[in-house]
């Protein structure tokens, strides 16, 4: 089976000067749960944003579902984004709108420009939104404004919005970096269930190595824009973690016992 996503020698240079990615190649199979780990500024976010073209890669090919993303025109980019959900560290919701309105925003990519602008949704879409909210335990919050929610609830709204897109791939950019350990577990469990039951491929950026190891099948370690580890999560050794973070024994929070 062909991989759902493939990076072929991708490089990204910001403003002609800052090297973010250097010759990055990897592929992701359909239904995989992959975490990208690495120090801040190593290029994790750039990898994720190259996939839905929020960032344009400078060189190389990114093949998603048989299409070369890097050569896609505006229309094709929209097709790619429709199939790709994204979850953000700061949730990126419209805080002043209600929960269900934010969830319905996931349909905007599927709609005609004018019906989207008018905020017109079909009954089926609305029913679907409430079903997704029920699955994520947000039924009671459906009509609340998003700024009344806790961080964990906001992130669940973010997940609901991406599910509304009926995506094949969900990109998670530091989804639990601003959450307490309890909410973090709820979020990771939901995403894990979504990955297993709905067969949606998930690609994560994570700072928490232990979380990455526990939840993902596979880990990609990246340092200074280069892949230094790509393999099963359970085979990641302590020495390799230190190589990814360019640190010595005893310098990482994961070393504290």
């Amino acid at each position, binding site marked *: 089976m062909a991989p759902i996503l493939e990076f072929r020698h991708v490089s990204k240079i910001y403003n002609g000067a800052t090297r973010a990615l250097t010759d990055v190649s990897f592929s992701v199979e359909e239904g995989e749960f992959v975490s990208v780990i690495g120090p801040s500024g190593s290029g994790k976010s750039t990898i994720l944003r190259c996939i839905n073209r929020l960032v344009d890669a400078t060189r190389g090919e990114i093949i998603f579902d048989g299409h070369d993303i890097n050569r896609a025109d505006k229309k094709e980019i929209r097709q790619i984004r429709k199939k790709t959900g994204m979850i953000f560290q700061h949730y990126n919701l419209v805080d002043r709108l209600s929960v269900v309105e934010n969830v319905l925003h996931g349909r905007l990519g599927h709609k005609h420009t004018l019906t989207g*602008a008018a905020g017109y949704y079909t009954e089926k879409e609305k029913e679907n939104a409430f079903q997704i909210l029920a699955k994520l335990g947000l039924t009671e919050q459906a009509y609340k404004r998003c700024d009344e929610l806790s961080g964990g609830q906001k992130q669940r709204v973010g997940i609901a919005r991406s599910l509304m897109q009926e995506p094949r791939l969900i990109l998670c950019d530091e989804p639990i970096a601003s959450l307490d350990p309890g909410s973090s577990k709820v979020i990771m469990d939901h995403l894990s269930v979504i990955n297993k039951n709905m067969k949606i491929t998930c690609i994560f950026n994570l700072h928490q190595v232990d979380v990455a190891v526990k939840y993902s099948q596979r880990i990609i370690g990246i340092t200074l824009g280069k892949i230094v580890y790509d393999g099963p999560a359970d085979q990641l050794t302590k020495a390799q973690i230190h190589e990814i973070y360019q640190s010595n024994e005893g310098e990482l929070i994961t070393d504290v016992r």
Partner: protein
Amino acid sequence: MSDNQTSVFVKRKRSFTLVFLGACGLFLVSAAVTGYDVIAGFESVPKAAGWMAKNFIPNAQAWSRLPNILAKLTETALVSVAVTVCAAGCAFFFSLLGTKTTKVNPWIGRTVRIIAAFFRNVPDIVWAILLLFSFGQNILTGFFALFFATFGMLTRTFIETIDEVSASCIEALRATGATFLPTVFQGILPSSLPEIVSWVLYMIETNIRSATLIGVLTATGIGAMFDLYYKRMDYSSASLVVISIVVLVVAIEMISNQIRKVIM
């Protein structure tokens, strides 16, 4: 205390004394040149206050003009509201092209910001004087003068508001594949609306004040009325005009503060 530290304090005192003496010298020289008599100057203060009290307190004749004054005041206030709302509508769509977050086109963005800066940095009075040539002493002159200045100011503030408040949800909506218009109406507008309304209210307050001044130039509205009474030396009526403007501006400020509290 070491010598070094002492010298710092001595230096400070010395420079202070020099500045003080210099200021005194400057005053004496300029008083001598202009023939200003300090004692006579201070003596005339109570006299002036007395004259103001006699002439500027609205008398019965002035109060009889109140209905006329209020009619003109309402006209000026309504024109200011109309101008601000029109300018805000144009400025919103213009600012969408000027923001960095919507990424319409970097060159269009730059052009928009330059145009907005131009309109903003020409004061409304100057706009009024320039437009007097084309429109004459007409209410339209005042309307366009205020419109241009307000448009420039609001475009700039809207660009900043959108870049600051809506950047994160713009990114999220773009990531879902939403096109420009849905992003504007479902993301930018709802997230930045309170800020936008707040700025519009502020500009309404400012514009009522400016409209008075522009009215003097264009012979329209409450400004013209003030000018008329003032030139007729009917000071008590003129001061009633000023008082009514102050009351109106304070009232509008209080109302808009209440509105802000509710929407924020």
